[in-house]
């Protein structure tokens, strides 16, 4: 039996990851905003062979907080934190309340959830905690620094968490997808760098099963791209519109 908890289970990447984590002994807990979508995903995972699937409707942007979610939670063997949003950069620069709520949804809430999950996993001395951040967090860019800052902050938080719980046998996986062709990015023009969520989901599931304790760029070529982008000197970087 493998207990798998997915927070933000209706995201395209999370759903694909869940499919690739499905085995006859997997017991899923799906948490997401839309009960109808969760039901559809649960039915799908059952057909694909999952042992059991439970779902809880929860809005991570609401003021309820994550405590009600954590209280009855059985500590999972695998946890995936996949919720988040893509804030509008221009609005974030003028609308303070909006910007704060977006920073919370993309940093504070996932960080607090990761902390509590890691603590529980540490008590069992086993666990795989995977969190979806983004390549956008690797360097602040003028076109999306609210998103980049939240995701970059989350990556740094996970780095610390990994260090802290290393001796407790808790693996902390920081997943940094590149451009993924999902409903969240439907309005973007697509090019050769774009990946399908099934490819990304398969890579995440494999890294989780392998117990990878570190950073996963997916598709892998993003490791090289971001390596270069981090190295570009500021005086050149400032002349680009990235």
């Amino acid at each position, binding site marked *: 039996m493998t207990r798998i908890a997915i927070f933000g289970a209706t995201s395209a990447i999370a759903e694909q990851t869940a499919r690739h984590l499905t085995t006859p002994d997997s017991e899923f807990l799906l948490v997401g905003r839309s009960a109808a979508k969760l039901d559809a995903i649960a039915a*799908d995972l059952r057909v694909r062979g999952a042992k059991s699937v439970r779902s809880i409707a929860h809005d991570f942007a609401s003021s309820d907080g994550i405590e009600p979610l954590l209280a009855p939670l059985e500590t999972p063997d695998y946890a995936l934190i996949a919720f988040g949003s893509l804030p509008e950069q221009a609005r974030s620069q003028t609308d303070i309340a909006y910007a704060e709520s977006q920073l919370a949804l993309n940093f504070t809430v996932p960080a607090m959830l990761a902390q509590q999950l890691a603590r529980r996993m540490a008590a069992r001395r086993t666990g795989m905690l995977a969190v979806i951040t983004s390549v956008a967090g690797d360097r602040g860019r003028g076109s999306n620094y609210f998103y980049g800052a939240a995701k970059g902050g989350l990556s740094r938080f996970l780095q610390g968490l990994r260090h802290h719980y290393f001796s407790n046998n808790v693996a902390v996986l920081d997943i940094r997808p590149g451009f993924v062709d999902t*409903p969240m990015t439907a309005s973007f023009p697509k090019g050769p760098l774009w990946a399908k969520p099934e490819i990304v989901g398969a890579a995440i599931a494999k890294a989780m099963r392998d117990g990878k304790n570190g950073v996963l760029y997916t598709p892998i070529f993003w490791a090289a791209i971001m390596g270069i982008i981090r190295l570009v000197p500021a005086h050149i970087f400032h002349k680009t519109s990235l």
Partner: protein
Amino acid sequence: MVTSWGRVRHAAQQIEYGSDLPEGEKTLLSYGLGRSYGDSCLNDGGIALITGDRFIAFDREAGTITCEGGTMLRSILQLCRTANPDGSHWFLPVTPGTQHITVGGAIANDVHGKNHAQRGTFGQHVQSFMLQRSDGTFLCSPSENVALWQATIGGLGLTGRITQATLQLMRVPGLMIESETIPMQSLAEFFALADASSAWEYSVGWVDCLAKGEAVGRGLFSRGRHVAGACPAPRKPLAMPFELPFTPLNRWTLGLFNACYRRRIRRARTNRQPYWKFLYPLDAIAGWNRFYGPRGFYQYQCVIPPGRAKETIRAQLETIAQAGEGSFLIVLKNFGDQPSPGMLSFPMPGTTLAVDFPNRGERTTALIAALDALTLAAGGRVYPAKDAVMSPQHFEAYYPNWRDFSRWIDPRFSSSFWRRVTATDEPSP
């Protein structure tokens, strides 16, 4: 810009993931995996609707599966890998030469496989589907909303969006295929072998596109049936990660390829292979269409009725050999006489020929026109899912009931193909 599998037709279209039909003036068309070859899956200037790919239910006793319209055939086959308690397996009763198509696309093109003579078309195994239209959502089956049922099977996506469908799978002894490969020296041998293969689930002929005169029809005949036995998991496909700067296919390389392919098998032989190797050899190379270079390729597939098949297919093979064009394979198959419920379905009794041509501009379209003239004269028809060039006049001749069909088109839906083949702006004589 998106393109289709042949990479000769392109469309600028807006992509919509939502489950409701978008409002507005732009026309709609479901887009699955873009594996149609021409423009039947494209809607230039319109909206491409993306449909979910979730399973809804699988009754393993009855072998019925319900899934969303965007579900890939490959996903269904993955479920089929689990054996039934008696050791048998469920399997797709009809599958084309790739598993990378959606259920919605399989219905909209009423696809066929190497077992048409035994099982008919995909649409014949669909128990029901939900059709989302601008005037509501309808459950369609052989007993409910029958006209929409008939119009949607083979209806090229024009009657609405297939949101979900229930399929009846077929029970097979196993996932391995026992196959026989038999060299053919002439076209007559193809017809003789096809007639003598009714005890086999699958049969198909491969023909050397450069053979002339007496040798026309030279090639290999292959037939197979399901047998029990452990089936290895599909191999990870090799990828064709970039397009070649030009196509390496020409008269000389083709001659070499065909000679080698033929020489490999001089005598009839039997073999046991996994279903994915037998049914989907091209799926082993992801993106094989890039092999044809930046200009892409056309596929021509027609069916010729039985009375005229021998002479017409011979004439077509000679025309192709004369032109020195063609691809690795010309595929010949016999269709059976099981009628499909689809109003606009392509298959009909007779023999079907399918061939790829690298796009060399007018030279290629002229060759296709010559093949078309032969198809038309023989009372045959061309497969819209493969087509990028047929004229409105030819479409009308191939599908005389299209006006009848068009009453069931959802006014919000359209496609690049449909606008092309129903264009009426030609000056009247």
